[in-house]
């Protein structure tokens, strides 16, 4: 790759690079001020919390890339959590079958979103607001009160480490990136999603299957939210139909997507940026913890840091000398 190519690549992944740098700085600050320092338990605890939001943020990234927000990812997350807390237990065969059903349920929820958006020609934001309520309703029916169980050995393994060094949850995230995200990004359908988000009319005129691309994006989004729901079950050992959890994860996933450099207009960005966006959001909480801020100050501080992080990505505005470009 020539120098000019490298420059272009760097310029095009500016959002991702900023997110990685900001995360590394924040996490270093966190570890430096943590009483225990860089130890396996500290990292594993941080990873387990961060991976949940990272997976939900990856799920959010796909609809955003096609140019629409998905307000139901948090609810699919909660619904699959409740489903997993009833299915993923018993014999190894039952556990395996349960996992498959949970993931299929997530994908099905995403497929329904996509089908309504594509064939019903409705706005994603309002469609998923409605279907999100439906998925929450299903979660409530599955688990009216918190509880349930999950295969404990598996849960322990998933929330602990491999060879006592690397958190299993991080490996799961890596596997999702390598086996789901990267193949998707390099596939014809995946590029179709970028094309649809960038200019839907042009994508159609280029002979792309516009509807199928969008449907794939939503379905994969549901699957990723389902993986996150499964992971939540391993972390909490139970299921809970919690509207606050669903809502918080949905909104934080949007923030993570933006911090990670994906354009809310669609067409540019990617899920890896969103992972680091999620890590940044999580590290804010951890920083507040190690610096021992009074709890009353936390939401305010969180908001300020979030604004700062988003502003970094918008700094290009100061370099614009043709005011018309502000609107593009």
């Amino acid at each position, binding site marked *: 790759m020539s120098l*000019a*190519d490298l420059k*272009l*690549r760097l310029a*095009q992944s500016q959002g991702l690079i900023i997110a990685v740098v900001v995360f590394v700085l924040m996490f270093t600050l966190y570890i430096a001020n943590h009483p225990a320092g860089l130890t396996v338990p500290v990292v594993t605890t941080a990873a387990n919390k961060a991976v949940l939001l990272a997976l939900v943020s990856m799920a959010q990234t796909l609809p955003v890339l096609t140019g629409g927000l998905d307000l139901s990812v948090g609810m699919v997350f909660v619904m699959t959590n409740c489903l997993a807390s009833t299915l993923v237990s018993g014999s190894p065969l039952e556990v395996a079958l349960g996992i498959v059903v949970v993931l299929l349920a997530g994908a099905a929820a995403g497929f329904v979103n996509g089908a309504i958006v594509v064939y019903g020609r409705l706005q994603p934001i309002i469609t998923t607001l409605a279907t999100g309520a439906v998925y929450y309703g299903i979660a409530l029916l599955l688990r009216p009160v918190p509880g349930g169980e999950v295969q404990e050995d598996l849960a322990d393994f998933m929330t602990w480490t491999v060879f006592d060094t690397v958190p299993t949850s991080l490996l799961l995230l890596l596997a999702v990136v390598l086996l789901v995200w990267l*193949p998707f990004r*390099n*596939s*014809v*359908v995946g*590029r179709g999603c*970028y*094309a649809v*988000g*960038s*200019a839907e*009319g*042009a*994508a*159609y*005129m*280029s*002979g*792309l*299957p516009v509807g199928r691309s969008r449907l794939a994006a939503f379905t994969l989004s549901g699957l990723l939210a389902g993986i996150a729901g499964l992971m939540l079950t391993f972390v909490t050992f139970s299921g809970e139909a919690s509207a606050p959890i669903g809502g918080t994860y949905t909104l934080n996933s949007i923030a993570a997507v933006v911090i990670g450099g994906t*354009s809310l207009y*669609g*067409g*540019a960005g990617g899920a890896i940026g969103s992972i680091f966006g999620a890590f940044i959001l999580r590290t804010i909480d951890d920083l507040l913890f190690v610096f021992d801020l009074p709890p009353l100050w936390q939401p305010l501080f969180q908001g300020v840091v979030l604004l700062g992080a988003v502003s970094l990505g918008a700094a290009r505005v100061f370099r*614009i*000398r*043709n*005011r*018309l470009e502000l609107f*593009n």
Partner: protein
Amino acid sequence: MTHEVVTEAQAPLPHRATPFWQMHGITKRYGGILALDDVDFACERGEIHAVLGENGAGKSTLIKIAAGVVTPSEGKLMLEGHEVGFATPQEANAAGIVCIFQELSLMPDLSVADNICMANPPGRFGFINHRAQRRRAEALLARVGCEDVNPLELVKNLPLSRRQMVEIAKALGREPRMLILDEATSALTAADVGKVYGILRDLRRDGLAILYISHRMHEIEELADTCSVFRNGRHIETFAKGARSDNEIIRLMIGREYTQVYPPKPAHREPPPPALTVKDLSWGRRLKNVSLNVGKGEIVGLGGLDGQGQRELLLALFGVLRGVSGAVEVDGKAARLSSPGQAKSDRIRMALIPEDRKSEGLLLPMSVRDNISMASIGRFTQGPGGMFIDRARQDARIDEMVARLSIKCGDTDSPVGTLSGGNQQKVVIAKWLMTEARVILLNDPTRGIDVGTKQEIYQLLRELADAGTAILFYTTDYDELIGCCDRVSIMYDGGIVRELKGEAINEENILSSALNIDLNTGPNQPAAAGEPRA
């Protein structure tokens, strides 16, 4: 329908009993509107077939049907004598019909290579082979003479003229048997237009059928083998190039006698008092010490190759650019222009008719009425502190404008997006006439507009000038510089290299100054500083 084609450049093809592409009795209705009315049309391989007609003549509908974007209400399509039907652009592509549309079909956030290989990327099992894709993009870019474009660059970072070349490369990558170009050269630089001509001639020799839609008569003269004229959704006539004179063709297109394109220029006179004076205007590396003046009642043309700073000059004057140095005076008063709002204020009263009417000129979903009043709402207020809009007074002025510009719209309350291109552009002009501007800046206002509307716009500009308005008119069409302008300033590399007046405004002078060469010292000698300016 067969016709003899008289072009010596054309390779002899075996005579076919059935034409390559035929459309029989095609009718297309949109609601109550008849876009195409029982049209028969045929196109052969190895010919460049020009489709002519005003905006709204049915050309767009015709090619949209061929490209699978629109399905006809009646009639049948025949490819090599077999009946075909396309439900989507993909199906038309699969049959070898590829269209380059006027609205670019590129995805701005994706790379050039992604865009070029969008429809059929190299690779296996649904995964894209990026290396192969890049090689293919490089080969196609080289084919259209754009080796300077990096395939990794995002399309949105390319200038419009490069994007159009990428669009052509993309179309060639689909291995068309019939290529349709809809105003494909409207945004190209003169050098690129030449390249495109060369490519099209090569493709013709390779036996492609080429449908070519353009509003530029000289392009048709240069390229076409056969011409078909459309008017009001009907196919009027098909003839071999040269069989009809320009005037006859234009008469067929507009259905009436074509008298004179440009209104007469006023006789030579004393230089008028300056209305707009620009001194040493600079902006980064794009504008270099530009000085010019436009007198009251004068039309001054801005010429030169595309992208020499003409657009930036107009945007700088209108307060869109940041960090501009130099002095601007309007009617002798110093004007500090830091926003379009200020430029149009009562003190200055400047107007800019922008280049892209769809994104910078119009609010497409809003009504014709709202669009026309958009820039002048402040002039029609009443009540305490001018809080309310005086609808009656405003509507009377709007109706006056619609009548004056003969804007054809069913109802001034219908969305402006439903109007034809020419009428949309008239709405943009009406919007700025409402502000009673003293200085009007025009940025290539006739691009993609039909002959009839163009003529009306020329007439209007002259009327405005006669009423004392100062007009600075940038156009990529040399004919307009010659026909419309009292003086012409040619820009090159961000500066004005030459000013032409009176008889000196001719194609030879414009072209040589645009290329910054002095014809007297030889074609390849770049002039040191152009001729001294008046």
